C-alpha cells in the first residue's frame, strides 16, 4: 500500500481480543492471543497450515459455537462489548459481522434470493422494492452488478468461481455488517478472479472493517494494512504490514516470510 495511511492512533479500535484460548476437546488450538483490530482497515492473518488463524477468525463471529467440543476462553470485544457475554445473541452478532468462506458457497437459489436472504430473515426489508434496492446496492458494491443485472433470477451456482465469491461478498454486505471476515476467500480462484476480489477488498475498506485469513503472503502484503503472524497456535508478531514484511522482529516471522517454514 503506497497511499498515505491514516495513523493507527487516528482509527477507532473495532475488535479487541484479550487472552483468547481455544480448545477442541483436549487439544488447545490457540494460546493466549491478544489482538486489536482497527476500524476501516484490512487486517491479515497469516501463518502456516494449522497455526490457528482460521480458528481465531471463527471466534470473532462465534462460528466455532456449532463445533462440538470447542471451547473459547478469554475476551473478544466488539466496540467494547464482550461477544461471548451471555447477553449477546449470536444471531444478532452474525448480522453485525459478516463472513465470506474459503470455497464460494452460494445458496442453491437465484442470485436475487442469495443476496436478499439475509435482509429478509432479519426483517431489514419486507417490501419487494426495498429488497430490490438492497440487492442492487450490494451487488454494485461487490462489483458484480454489471455482470448479473439481467439474470438476477438465474441460479447463483451457475456463475463462475470468482463471480460466486463476489456474490457471497454481496450476500454478506446486504445485511449491513460492521465487520467482514474472510477465510482465504481467493484460495479456490484463478489469478484474475483473485485480483478482482483484492481490488474489491480495498474498496470495501472504506465502509467496513475487514479481517482476512490468507495463505498467500503476497496477498497479505497487497491488501492489508496490518498483519498478524500465527504459528502453532501462538500470535507471534502483529504490526503494520510494511513492517512485518520488511523488518520482522521475530525469527519465526522472518523464516516464514522468507519461505523457510510453512
Amino acid at each position, binding site marked *: 500500500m503506497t497511499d498515505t495511511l491514516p495513523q493507527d492512533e487516528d482509527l477507532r479500535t473495532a475488535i479487541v481480543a484479550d487472552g483468547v484460548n481455544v480448545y477442541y476437546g483436549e487439544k488447545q488450538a490457540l494460546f493466549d492471543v491478544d489482538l486489536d483490530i482497527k476500524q476501516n482497515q484490512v487486517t491479515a492473518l497469516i501463518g502456516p497450515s494449522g497455526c490457528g488463524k482460521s480458528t481465531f477468525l471463527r471466534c470473532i463471529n462465534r462460528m466455532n459455537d456449532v463445533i462440538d467440543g470447542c471451547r473459547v476462553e478469554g475476551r473478544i470485544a466488539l466496540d467494547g462489548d464482550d461477544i461471548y457475554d451471555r447477553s449477546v445473541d449470536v444471531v*444478532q452478532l*452474525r448480522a453485525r459481522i459478516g463472513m465470506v*468462506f474459503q470455497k464460494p458457497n452460494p445458496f*442453491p*437459489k437465484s442470485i436475487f434470493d442469495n443476496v436478499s*436472504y439475509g435482509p429478509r430473515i432479519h426483517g431489514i426489508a419486507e417490501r419487494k422494492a426495498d429488497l430490490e434496492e438492497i440487492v442492487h446496492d450490494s451487488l454494485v458494491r461487490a462489483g458484480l452488478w454489471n455482470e448479473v443485472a439481467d439474470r438476477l433470477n438465474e*441460479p447463483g451456482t451457475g456463475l463462475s468461481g470468482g463471480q460466486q465469491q463476489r456474490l457471497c461478498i454481496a450476500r454478506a454486505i446486504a445485511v449491513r455488517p460492521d465487520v467482514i471476515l474472510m477465510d482465504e476467500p481467493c484460495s479456490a480462484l484463478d489469478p484474475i478472479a483473485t485480483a478482482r476480489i483484492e481490488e474489491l477488498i480495498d474498496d470495501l475498506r472504506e465502509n467496513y472493517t475487514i479481517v482476512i485469513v490468507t495463505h498467500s503472503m503476497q496477498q497479505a502484503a497487497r491488501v492489508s494494512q496490518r498483519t498478524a503472524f500465527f504459528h502453532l497456535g501462538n500470535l507471534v508478531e502483529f504490526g503494520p504490514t510494511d513492517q512485518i514484511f520488511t523488518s520482522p522482529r521475530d525469527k519465526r516471522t522472518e523464516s516464514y516470510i522468507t519461505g523457510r517454514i510453512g
Partner: protein
Amino acid sequence: MSGNREGRGRMSRSDTMETVRKGLRSRYAAERRFIWYGRGAIAVALGFLVLLVGSILIKGASVVTQTHIRLTVELPLETFSKNGVVTAESIGAANYVGLVKSSLRDLFPDVSGRRDKRALDSLISSGAPYELRDHVLANPELVGQSIDIWLSASDDIDMLDKGYIDRDIDSTGRRVTDKQIGWYDKLIADGRLERQFNTTFFTSGDSREPEQAGIWGAALGSFYTLMVTLLLAFPLGVTTAVYLEEFAPKNKWTDLIEVNINNLAAVPSIIFGLLGLAVFLNIIGLPRSAPLAGGVVLALMTLPTIIIAGRAALKAVPPSIREAALGVGASRLQTVTHHVLPLAMPGMLTGSIIGMAQALGETAPLLMIGMVAFIVDLPGGPLDPATVLPVQVYIWADSPERAFVERTSAGIIVLLLFLVVMNLSAVMLRKRFERRW
C-alpha cells in the same frame, strides 16, 4: 537411456513398457469378465421378474371379465306392491330369489326333479337376486313389466367359460356335471351367456362367493392404513432425524438413542403387532381391526427406516451450505428449514417411500390387531373395520374355490399397482424438490 548401468534390478524404460504391455491383456480381460458378470446377473434378475410378473398377469388377467347370464324376468305388480301401493319398501321386500329361480327354470321347462332343479339353480350366482333387487330399486318404473337382465353366473360356470374346467374328463372329477354343461351350451346357443366387465371385483369387498368377492374393500383399507402411517411416520421421522443430526449434542445418550433406532429397524414386525395389541388396543382403546390402529403400528415399524434415511440425507448436505446460512445470521432452525431440509428432502422421500412400501406389504403386525380378517363391508374411514391388500391376497390364496386362484393373482396385481402409484407420486414429489443448481 542408460539406466541399466546401475544394474540393481532396476528396469530400463523399455523393459518397463514391455512388462506393462504384457500385463495389459489380463487387465482388460478381467474388466470384460466383470462387465459380463454384471450383465449376467441383471439378465437373471430380469428373467425371474418377467417370469413372476408374467405368470401373475396370465393367471390374474381373466378376472377383468365375469360370466353373466341374461334372464327374462317377469316383475308382476302384485309381487312388488303392498295393498296395491308400490313403495321402495315393498320393492325391497319382494322375493327375488324366487323370481330369479323361476325365470331360470322357464328357460329349461323340461328340467324336473329336486336334484336337477338345484343343479340348474346353481348356474346362477347366489348374489344374483341382490343384483336384480338393486336394479329394480333403482328403476321402480319397471314394475309390472317383463325385463331382460344380465346377472352374474356362478363361479363354476365362470371357470367353465374361461376354460379352467376341462369338460373332456370324467364328470366325477370336475365341479360341473354333464347336465350343467348341456344347459351352459344351450345358454350360449341362445345368446344368453356372455362375459362382461367385472365391476364387482373392482367395486366391492370380500365375499365367500368368488364371483361376488372384490378387491376394493382391501384397497380402501390399505389406503386408509397407509394414510395414517404416512401422516404419523413422515413428520415424526423427519423431525427426529433433523433433531438428532442438526441439534442434539453428540454424547453417550444420543449414541444410545442412535443404536436403539438402528436396532428397531431390525425388530421382527410381529413384535410391533404385539405392542399394538397391548398398548393401542388394550390400554389406549383404539378400535379393533381399524386402519387407525393398523396405521399407528405400521408407523412405529416405518419410523426407524425414515429416521435412518433422513439422517443419511442430512449428512449428505454439504456443510458449506450451513456455514453460509449461519454466516449471514440465520438461526439454526432457519438454517435447517430454509436450506438444509430442502436439499435433504429428495433423500428423505426416498427413505420414506421404502418404508411405506414395506408397510404396504406387511401382514404380521396386523394379525395381532385384528386386521387379518374376513371383512365384507367397504370401510368408510380409518375407524371402520378393514383389511389390507396383502391380507386379502392371503385369504383368497387360502380358499378352495378355483375362481379364487385368478382373484389371488389379480389381488397381487392390484397390490403391485398400488405400489407403483405410490412410487410414482414419490418420484414426482422428489422432482419438485430437486433443485440442485
